[in-house]
């Protein structure tokens, strides 16, 4: 009976996600830029913590803590990714996908709250679940604040205007001039390595693939392309990308927690069979 109610409640939730998808298509990502995203995250955390501590018998608590909910939400995530992978599903910024991810985050956070409420907290459990939550949250809530601009930097004139993917123009806080561009080739003519030496507001800066330059706490500079010339010639320009990602530290922290959790998962394993388990982990 309880299982049926839980499945029904999730059916209503995913039905609502489907209706939103059919009516509105893309999720209004820009509306959730800072501080709206931070406020929403804080509110959800507080509400779930209160429900976990004060109303553990409520229907909402039962819904989020039921093992069936975890399986159902992971299955919904699997289906959404599968549809995306096969090319006929809603995109990652669609209402459907956002609501599936929101459900996954809610179940994950509630699992963490229940985990820390236990007398004996398992370090592996915490690292995996908190790490996954923090990494996903950083990408999910931080996507509204992530911005990317490209700038074409020539040799003869200093530039400070960049463009986003939609063609929107932005005046940057920095100006760039290409001082030199070095390319090394393999014997068959394929580039082995390339590096741009830039003049950034009078300061010499070097950028190459896999070696971005840190402009500020939230901004990094990447070398994405250059004028393709034959061996011996000098490239006349290079294309840089500025990535503004203030939530990256959260993702970074979550990823390293998950790395530590995965190492412990490898070392310790999880007793999944009923006879090997003293108490259910989740």
């Amino acid at each position: 009976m309880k299982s049926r109610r839980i499945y029904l409640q999730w059916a209503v939730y995913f039905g609502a996600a489907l209706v939103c998808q059919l009516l509105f298509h893309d999720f209004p990502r820009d509306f959730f830029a800072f501080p709206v995203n931070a406020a929403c995250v804080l509110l959800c955390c507080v509400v779930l913590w209160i429900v976990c501590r004060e109303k553990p018998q409520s229907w909402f608590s039962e819904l989020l803590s039921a093992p069936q909910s975890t399986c159902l939400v992971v299955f919904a995530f699997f289906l959404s990714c599968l549809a995306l992978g096969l090319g006929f599903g809603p995109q990652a910024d669609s209402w459907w996908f956002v609501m599936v991810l929101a459900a996954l985050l809610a179940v994950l956070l509630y699992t963490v709250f229940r985990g820390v409420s236990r007398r004996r907290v398992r370090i592996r459990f915490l690292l995996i679940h908190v790490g996954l939550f923090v990494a996903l949250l950083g990408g999910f809530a931080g996507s509204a604040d992530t911005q990317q601009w490209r700038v074409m930097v020539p040799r003869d004139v200093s530039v400070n205007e960049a463009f986003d993917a939609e063609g929107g123009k932005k005046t940057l806080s920095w100006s760039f001039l290409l001082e030199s561009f070095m390319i090394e080739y393999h014997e068959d003519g394929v580039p082995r390595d390339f590096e741009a030496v830039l003049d950034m507001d009078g300061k010499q800066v070097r950028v190459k693939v896999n070696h971005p330059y840190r402009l500020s706490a939230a901004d990094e500079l990447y070398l994405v392309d250059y004028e393709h010339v034959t061996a011996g010639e000098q490239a006349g320009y290079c294309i840089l990308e500025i990535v503004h990602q203030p939530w990256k530290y959260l993702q970074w922290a979550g990823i390293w927690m998950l790395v530590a959790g995965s190492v412990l998962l490898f070392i310790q394993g999880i007793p999944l069979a009923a006879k090997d388990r003293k108490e259910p982990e989740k």
Partner: protein
Amino acid sequence: MMWDYFTGFAAVAALCWAAGAFMAMREKRSDFSRAAIVLTSAGMVVFSAFIAGLWISLGRPPLRTMGETRLWYSFFMMISGLLTYRWWHYRWVLLVSVVMTMVFVVINILKPEIHDQTLMPALQSFWFVPHVTVYMFSYAVLGCAFLLGIAGWIQHTDRYSVTTDRLVCIGLAFLTLGMLSGALWAKQAWGNFWTWDPKEVWAAVTWSVYVLYIHMRLCSGRSTTLTQALLVLGFVCMQMCWYGVNYLPWAGESMHLYS
């Protein structure tokens, strides 16, 4: 070129592996056959000598082309098969691992692909070797879990479930490490940890299947046809993630095209 010697090295390794599998099948008295372990290890020494030689001759890690990743998969498949045999003593697991390994070895002989020295700048990163080898190891371990899942399904038994669970935990741990090292590398190379690139989407599909397997096993506590089917589904998704994604019409949009 070192690649020209592959058939010879592979033939010697295959003979050792086949002899090891035969000894394992023949052993009835003890838990495991020492001769099987020695012969299989000898085959792996031969195979790893070829990989080391190829690495030196190319002057770069042999991890770039699909053929090179198949080489690592064959190597790790035998390691996981050997460890599964040593720890859990399934007599048949070495034989099945050899057959599966030989499929990829034969593909490499028939379709060696390009093995030149070029390594594009994007691949010249600290993350290149750990990212690919960790993935290949997880694929091999999950391949072993798939074989046990199939065996349980055919025999209508859950006697392999404890071993399968252990293999899935190890495989999922390495799969997650592969994804995370990829995310850290992607941030360094492209500016974003995750971009829903076709390869990344299929990695998420594969990962979610094994997460679902673990949670379903935690829920029910016993192996069912459904959890065994998840092992098969996970293996299929893994093949899609590894090379199947290259055959999709939008594969050209992927940033993971290096071969």
